[in-house]
C-alpha cells in the first residue's frame, strides 16, 4: 500500500471519497476534471451497506443491500448516523432493524456496538469496510492510490470527525484531509462556473442536513457560516412513511415491530418516496396482519404535508446561518443543491421560496461532493497555489463552569485553524487537581451540549484558593480536530494533556482493530510502522533538500553544517534502521536543526505575501487584539459570554 508511493511505473493518484449515509463514491481527477470511478457494483454509487455473513465473510454494496430485508440484523445500512455516537444515544432509539450490544462498562459505553449475529461491530469498523472496497476499486483502475480526502457533513462534531478519520486509518488509507461536504460541493461548482460571489449550499442527504454560506473570491473559497443538523435527512422521510404503512398493516404498536417487518416497511417507504419524484401518486400493496392485503396510497400533497415539519427544521438552520454570516437571503447570488434528498420536488420548491431564486442543480447532486473531494485531494497533493479553502468551526467549543453553565472559548463559525486561551483558578484551599470538562454545542448548559473530553490537570502546588492561574489553550486544526494544552502559570508547570475523548475509540482500540482486521501479528505491525517512518523520513528529506537548494541565504555556515550532518544521519537511518524509533529519532533531530531556519523562511514568505507591509504591524494588531480579549474575558464582558445578567 504505502510502498506504492515509490512505484516508478504508476504515479499514485490522489482520490476523493464521499462516505455517505446511503451511498459512497470514490472520484479522482483526469486532466483537471473530476471523474467518478466505477465501484465493485459496476456503478459510481456504492450503497453504504455492509453485510456480515454467517461464515464471517463481509460484503458491501448492492449485494449487501439485497440481504437487508432477509437478514436485517446482519446487514448494516446508514452507519454514518452512528459515527462517534455512544451506546444509548438518541439515534439508537429510533425506528430501525438493528440490535445493539449492551455495554459491559463505562469505557465500552463510549461507542455504539451493533450486534450482528453475535458479533460486535462498531460504526468505525463498518465504515472501514466501505472505504476498503472503494480503495480496492480505485487501485484496480488507477494502479496506485496516493492520499485521499474524505468528506464529512459540515455539522459533524469532533467525535464524529475522529471516528471518520479512524475508519480511514483502519481501511489503510492515507487521509490528507477531512473536508466538509458543502465546501466540497462549492469547490466543484465554483471551478465549473468560474464565477465569484456569495453562494449557499443546501445539502440534504440520507441522514444529515447542512447549510453553508460561502464567498468565492479569486480562487479563495471562504466559508462565512455553516449550520445544520447531523440527524436529519431522507431517512427521516422514509420513517414517516413507514410508520403510516405499519399502521395500515395493522402493526402500529412497537411490540409488533420485528426487524424483518421494519426493514420491509422502510424499503417500501423509500421506493414510494422515489416514485413520487416523477409521479403525483403512488400505490403500494402491503401484507396485513392476520392475512390479506391492504392498499396504501400516497400522493404528493400528503407527502408534502408529512415532511413539512422536517423542511421547517432545515429552514430554521438556513435562517440562522444567514444571521451568523450577517447576510440576507436576497444577497445570495446562487443556491447549490446537494444530496439525493434534494430530488424531492417539495424540497426544491421550498429552497426556492427561502432564497427567492431557482436553485442550481446542473451537477449530479449525488456526485458533486465526491467531485469536490477529488479536486481538493489533487490540490493538496500538487500544492497548487491558485485555490484555497478557508473553513470554519461548525459548533462552539467551551468548558463547563461551576454550576454546569458553559463558558464558550471559541464561538461557532470561527475561521480555522483557530486557537484560544482561557484562564481558570482554583476554588478550594490547597487544591492540587483541576477538573476540566470540554463540550461542543450552542446550548447554555453543559449537560445539553456534546461532551468531548473530561480530564484532570494534576500536580498543582498547594496554595490558597484563587491563587493558581491555570491557562488552558485550545487548538482546532485544519481538519477541525481539537487539541488541548494546559499549564499552571505561577509555577510554570506545563502539562500537555492527552485528551481522552468522552466518545469514540482510544488509540489502543484502533490499533487492536488494525491487528484484527488485517490479520497483522505484532511483528507485522512493527514492520508497517517502520515503512511508515521511512516514508515520512523520505518526505522530510525531499522538503529539506528543496529548501537547501533555494533558500541558503537565510542560513549561517554553522547551521548549514548542522543540517547537513542531520540529513546524512537520517539517510543512514533510513538505510539501516530496524526499529521505527531509530528513524523517528533522526527525524526529530533534523526537525530541530531546521527549526529556526524554517521560521525565517516563513517570515520572508509572509513579507512577500503582504506586499511590503512590515510583519511587525500585523503581529502588533494580533497581540493587541489578544490583549483586549483577555481583558474582556477576565471581566466577563466578552459578548459571546453574555449571560442573563444584562
Amino acid at each position, binding site marked *: 500500500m504505502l510502498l506504492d508511493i515509490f512505484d516508478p511505473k504508476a504515479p499514485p493518484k490522489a482520490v476523493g471519497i464521499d462516505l455517505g449515509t446511503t451511498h459512497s463514491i470514490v472520484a479522482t481527477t483526469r486532466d483537471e476534471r473530476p471523474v467518478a470511478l466505477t465501484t465493485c457494483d459496476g456503478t459510481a454509487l456504492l450503497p453504504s451497506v455492509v453485510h456480515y455473513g454467517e461464515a464471517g465473510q463481509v460484503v458491501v454494496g448492492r449485494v449487501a443491500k439485497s440481504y437487508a430485508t432477509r437478514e436485517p440484523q446482519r446487514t448494516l445500512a446508514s452507519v454514518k448516523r452512528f459515527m462517534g455516537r455512544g451506546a444509548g444515544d438518541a439515534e439508537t432509539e429510533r425506528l430501525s432493524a438493528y440490535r445493539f450490544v449492551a455495554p459491559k462498562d463505562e469505557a465500552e459505553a463510549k461507542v455504539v456496538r451493533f450486534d450482528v449475529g453475535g458479533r460486535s461491530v462498531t460504526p468505525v469498523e463498518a465504515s472501514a469496510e466501505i472505504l476498503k472496497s472503494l480503495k480496492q476499486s480505485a487501485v484496480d483502475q488507477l494502479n496506485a492510490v496516493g492520499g485521499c480526502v474524505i468528506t464529512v457533513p459540515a455539522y459533524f462534531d469532533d467525535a464524529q470527525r475522529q471516528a471518520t478519520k479512524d475508519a480511514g486509518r483502519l481501511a489503510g488509507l492515507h487521509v*490528507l484531509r477531512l473536508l466538509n461536504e458543502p465546501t466540497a460541493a462549492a469547490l466543484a461548482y465554483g471551478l465549473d462556473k468560474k464565477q465569484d460571489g456569495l453562494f449557499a449550499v443546501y445539502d440534504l442527504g440520507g441522514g444529515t442536513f447542512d447549510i453553508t454560506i460561502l464567498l468565492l473570491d479569486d480562487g*479563495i473559497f*471562504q466559508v462565512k457560516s455553516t449550520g445544520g443538523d447531523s440527524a436529519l435527512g431522507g431517512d427521516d422521510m422514509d420513517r414517516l412513511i413507514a410508520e403510516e404503512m405499519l399502521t395500515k398493516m395493522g402493526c402500529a404498536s412497537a411490540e409488533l415491530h420485528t426487524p424483518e417487518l421494519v426493514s420491509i416497511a422502510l424499503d417500501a417507504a423509500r421506493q414510494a418516496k422515489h416514485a413520487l419524484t416523477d409521479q403525483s401518486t403512488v400505490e403500494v400493496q402491503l401484507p396485513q396482519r392476520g392475512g390479506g392485503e391492504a392498499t396504501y396510497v400516497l400522493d404528493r400533497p400528503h407527502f408534502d404535508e408529512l415532511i413539512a415539519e422536517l423542511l421547517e427544521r432545515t429552514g*430554521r438552520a438556513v*435562517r*440562522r446561518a444567514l*444571521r451568523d454570516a450577517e447576510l440576507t437571503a436576497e444577497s445570495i447570488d446562487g443556491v447549490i443543491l446537494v444530496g439525493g434528498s434534494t430530488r424531492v420536488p417539495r424540497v426544491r420548491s421550498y429552497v426556492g421560496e427561502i432564497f427567492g431564486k431557482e436553485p442550481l442543480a446542473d451537477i449530479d447532486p449525488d456526485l458533486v461532493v465526491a467531485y469536490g473531494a477529488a479536486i481538493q485531494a489533487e490540490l*493538496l497533493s500538487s*500544492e497548487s*497555489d491558485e485555490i*484555497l*479553502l*478557508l473553513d470554519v468551526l461548525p459548533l462552539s467549543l467551551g468548558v463547563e463552569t461551576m454550576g454546569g453553565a458553559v463558558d464558550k472559548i471559541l464561538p461557532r463559525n*470561527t*475561521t*480555522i*485553524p*483557530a*486557537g*484560544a486561551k482561557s484562564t481558570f483558578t482554583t476554588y478550594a484551599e490547597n487544591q492540587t487537581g483541576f477538573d476540566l470538562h470540554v463540550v461542543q454545542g*450552542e446550548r447554555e448548559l453543559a449537560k445539553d451540549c456534546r461532551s468531548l473530553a473530561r480530564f484532570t490537570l494534576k500536580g498543582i502546588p498547594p496554595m490558597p484558593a484563587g491563587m493558581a492561574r491555570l491557562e488552558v489553550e485550545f*487548538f482546532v*486544526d*485544519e481538519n477541525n480536530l481539537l487539541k488541548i494544552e494546559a499549564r499552571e502559570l505561577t509555577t510554570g508547570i506545563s502539562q500537555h494533556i492527552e485528551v481522552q475523548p468522552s466518545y469514540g475509540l482510544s488509540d489502543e482500540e484502533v490499533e487492536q482493530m488494525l491487528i484484527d482486521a488485517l490479520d497483522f501479528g505484532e511483528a507485522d505491525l512493527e514492520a508497517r510502522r517502520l515503512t511508515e517512518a521511512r516514508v515520512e523520513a523520505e*518526505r*522530510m528529506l*525531499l*522538503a*529539506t533538500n528543496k*529548501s537547501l537548494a533555494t533558500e541558503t541565504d537565510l542560513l549561517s555556515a554553522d547551521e548549514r553544517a548542522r543540517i547537513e550532518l542531520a540529513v546524512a544521519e537520517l539517510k543512514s537511518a533510513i538505510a539501516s534502521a530496524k526499529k521505527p524509533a531509530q528513524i523517528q529519532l533522526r*527525524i526529530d533531530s*533534523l*526537525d530541530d536543526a*531546521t527549526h529556526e*531556519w*524554517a*521560521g525565517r*523562511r*516563513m517570515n520572508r*514568505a*509572509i513579507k512577500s*505575501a*503582504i*506586499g511590503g507591509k512590515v510583519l511587525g504591524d*500585523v*503581529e502588533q*494588531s494580533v497581540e*493587541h*487584539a*489578544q*490583549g*483586549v*480579549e483577555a*481583558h*474582556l474575558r477576565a*471581566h466577563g*464582558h466578552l*459578548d459571546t459570554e*453574555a449571560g442573563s445578567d*444584562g
Partner: protein
Amino acid sequence: MAALEARHRELSRALHPDRHAGKTPAERRHALGKAIEVNDAFRQLKNPLARASALLASLGHAPVDGQEAKPPAELLMDMMEQREALAEVRQSRDAKALDALTASIEARRDATLSALAAVFAEPGTLSAPRAAELMGELRYYARFLEEAGAIADEL
C-alpha cells in the same frame, strides 16, 4: 470591513496549512502558528466592541470594561421593557413580532455604531467617556440580539 476581509484572505493565502502540506514539520508548525494568530486577530477585529476597545487602548486611553460607565437610567428601563416584550414573543411563538422586535433593536444598534464611528473619526478630540457610554449601549443590544436569535431558532 471589506478591507479587513480582503487582508485576511491575502494573509491566509500565504499562511494556511494547505499551502505548506509538503514542507518540513518545523515549517508546518510555524505556518500553523501564524495562521492561528491571523485568524484570531481577524475574529477580534470583526467584532465592533473588541475593535473599539483595541482602538481606545491604542490611542492611550484606559481600557473599557463596561464597569466604569453606569448606563443611563432611561436605557436600563427601556431595555427592561424590550426584554419583557421578548419574553412575551417567546410565550406566544409569534415569529412576525420577533422579527419586528429584532429589526428595531438592529436599527438602534446600527445608529449607535454610526455614532461610535463618529466619535473615533477625530482622534484628536476623542471623548473616551462618550465612547465608553456608546460601547455600553452596544453591549446591551448585542446580548439582546443574541437571545432573540436563540429564540428564533426555537420557534
